[in-house]
């Protein structure tokens, strides 16, 4: 990937924005419009490696109608709008390009009453993913998508990114859990997409909108599906002396007709880092560990857990352990979900990749990933959603070393090529953002991309929503500004 020169954000909001700011203040009130350098600097970037863009005025609407008023004010002044959740995205999707109005949904956090007949609840976009599940759990439900950033990421961000998480293996990614949305379109109109009914009339604009990375409008009310809490859960930890054996276990489990709730693999480097960090009880001598979870009713979970243990042993597992109780299960998952906090012990910087390959190719592609890192003189760790074939190679480095970022990006490009060559795709859950625009034509023909562009244009004919994202250069709304990249902390 070519690294462009650093774009410096402007200091202060220019005089020409005075009229715009006045209208934004009229829309949401003076305390909810920020133009100061500190606030704008805070929202210049997200959790990706990219160093950031340039935020214009920042608004904090409290209602759907205020969002609508902000979008309309921006439109009157010909300014783009970028929605903002928690900023945990890893592909640069929330980075403001071209000094747009940034719309933070952080103050829209209400959760409606659960509709038990529909197994659905209306929520506002600023609700934090884990807060929703905490709210639902005593009622017997949870929100199934559980990205590793779930302690901070928001439902609106999940919708924009079609977020995944370990438990999406059995339950599906965000798109399967969004029934309806009220959306402020880029022209300021409010539309109801989808519905609580099973076969809503009209085109499935709800389905098209989810994963739109903020380029199709702003979801201001979201009806999400709630999933009943499973009465039985079994969590297994299997250790392997070779990464290949762990990967082969994953594809053998799926081939046997079992779809576990989650199947996660961690290699030795990451396992050791996590063990030092949280003491999750992972074995330090294993080349890889597989964390598998089955849930549902008691009979099926017992049967499936036994079958997974047997398959793991057949594939060469050196140890298979069943979590004895909820405390041990929670600890095993804590290890997995804090994996990236543990990295800071090893290297100052890291770059997380996100590709998907067919499960049967996991072992081969992983070997290539290790070889690619060696070739570029980088350390790589692997912790990934193995059940979905969703790889997350993590390249560790010190950005202060001259030429290092070029090597990191060259290795990343090789990993992407290896994944595509194995019949995979560019992104499993992080999205395209600004990170992978340049690779879109490796997966799609010009006609394919032209049709994606048509979908976008139907929502946003004037490139008013989060321009410069997803589609590669040469498509409408794609050419706006280059970014530089730097490394920092992230979730996976």
């Amino acid at each position, binding site marked *: 990937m070519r690294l462009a020169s650093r774009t410096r954000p402007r200091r202060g909001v220019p005089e020409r924005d005075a009229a715009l700011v006045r209208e934004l203040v009229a829309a949401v009130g003076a305390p909810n419009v920020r133009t100061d350098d500190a606030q704008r600097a805070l929202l210049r970037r997200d959790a990706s490696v990219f160093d950031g863009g340039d935020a214009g005025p920042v608004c904090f609407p409290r209602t759907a109608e205020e969002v609508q008023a902000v979008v309309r004010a921006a439109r009157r002044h010909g300014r783009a709008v970028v929605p903002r959740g928690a900023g945990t995205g890893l592909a640069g999707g929330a980075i403001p390009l071209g000094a747009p109005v940034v719309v933070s949904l952080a103050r829209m956090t209400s959760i409606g009453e659960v509709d*038990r007949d*529909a197994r659905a609840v209306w929520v506002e976009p600023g609700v934090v993913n884990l807060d929703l599940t905490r709210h639902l759990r005593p009622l017997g439900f949870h929100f199934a998508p559980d990205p590793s950033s779930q302690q901070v990421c928001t439902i609106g961000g999940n919708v924009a990114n*079609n977020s*995944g998480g370990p438990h999406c293996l059995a339950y*599906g990614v965000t*798109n*399967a859990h969004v029934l309806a949305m009220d959306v402020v379109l880029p022209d300021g*109109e*409010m*539309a*109801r*997409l989808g519905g609580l*009914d*099973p*076969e809503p*009339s*009209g*085109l*499935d*604009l*709800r*389905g*098209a909108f*989810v*994963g739109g990375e903020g380029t199709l409008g702003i979801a201001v009310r979201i009806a999400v599906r709630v999933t*009943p809490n*499973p009465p039985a859960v079994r969590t297994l930890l299997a250790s392997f002396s070779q990464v290949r054996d762990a990967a082969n276990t994953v*594809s053998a489990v799926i*081939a046997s*007709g079992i*779809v576990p709730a989650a199947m996660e693999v961690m290699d030795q480097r990451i396992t050791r880092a996590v063990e030092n960090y949280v003491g999750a009880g992972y074995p330090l001598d294993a080349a890889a560990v597989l964390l598998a979870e089955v849930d*549902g*009713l008691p*009979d*099926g979970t017992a*049967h499936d857990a036994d079958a997974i243990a047997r398959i793991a042993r057949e594939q060469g597992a050196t140890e298979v352990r069943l979590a004895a109780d909820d405390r041990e299960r929670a600890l095993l998952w804590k290890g997995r979900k804090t994996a990236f906090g543990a990295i800071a012990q090893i290297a100052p910087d890291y770059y997380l990749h996100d590709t*998907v390959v*067919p*499960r*049967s190719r996991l072992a081969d592609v992983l070997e290539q990933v290790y070889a690619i890192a060696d070739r570029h003189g980088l350390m790589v760790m692997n912790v990934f959603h193995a059940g979905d*074939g*969703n790889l997350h190679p993590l390249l560790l480095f010190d950005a202060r070393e001259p030429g290092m970022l070029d090597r990191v990006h060259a290795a990343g490009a090789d990993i992407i090529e290896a994944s595509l060559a194995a*019949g995979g*795709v*560019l*992104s*499993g859950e992080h*999205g*395209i953002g600004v990170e992978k625009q340049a690779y*879109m034509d490796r997966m799609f*023909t010009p*006609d394919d*991309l032209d*049709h994606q562009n*048509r*979908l976008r*244009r*139907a*929502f946003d004919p004037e490139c008013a929503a989060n321009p410069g994202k*997803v589609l590669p250069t040469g498509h409408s709304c794609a050419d706006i500004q280059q970014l530089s990249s730097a490394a920092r902390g992230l979730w996976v």
Partner: protein
Amino acid sequence: MGLTGALAERRDLVAFADEVGADGPVAVEGSRTRWSVGGEPIPGVRLVRAPSGVSAYLPEEMVVCVGAGTTVAELSSVLASSGQRCALPARGGTVGGAIAVGEQHLDVLGRGTLRASVLEVRYVSCDGRLVRGGGPTVKNVTGYDLPRLMTGALGTLGLLAEVILRTNPVPAASTWLRADGADPFAAFDALLHPSAVLWDGASTWVHLEGHPGDVAAQAAVLSRIAATTEVDGPPPLPPHRWSLEPSAIRGLTGRYVASVGTGLVLRDEPQPLRPPDAASLGVAARMKREFDPTGRLNPGRDPARR
């Protein structure tokens, strides 16, 4: 191999694209199972048939690549030979027809929604070109979601040639139970992941699937709510599909079979139109102009009249 590779190298797909061409009104004919959903194609329109047959099936990946002209029955029998199934409705017709209409299986609670099962679409555009959207893996967020857009679009944005679908294992045990006098909403609440809970205002039919011990345990849960009888399957279903918010089925009168938890209702008369709001229709109209500016694809049909 049908899962990956350039569409331009697939002779059957190229032949279909050539047949669709770039001029004049054209409609796809399958089995005519859902011929009038959203309006019938205009009289005299040139009819084409999509390619048929399974071009790749990888049970261990839980994906199948199948021509849109394949019958659901043929696909189901191929999947069954490997102990798998998919979310397409059992009512029959072709794969492409069911996806174009966006019709759910009666067991949607157990099988998952149709729209979530469509991983990749390969279709012919209004100018006769082959276009691919989505990807062959079970997880994918690469770019805009054309598979979702094409599902339920009644072939008005592109003509489906081939799709990659997610498959699932057939559960080890399956049983239909009828519970007379049961509160169907209480039954739905008491069961974990039933595949279907149907109600005609008097009796409740429940489809349980899973491991044998779980199915037996769930049947016991149901029998504590009302006396149950094992039956062969669902009751006879009236012909017209209604799509209601699930809570609205509490107030139904007349003859119906309603799916508790989903809001699908089968009745003797068609559902009145329920058009989307003006802003959604505006996006849909722009979508049509973007994908088919001359209105040549399946003229006469309109997803908002579905």
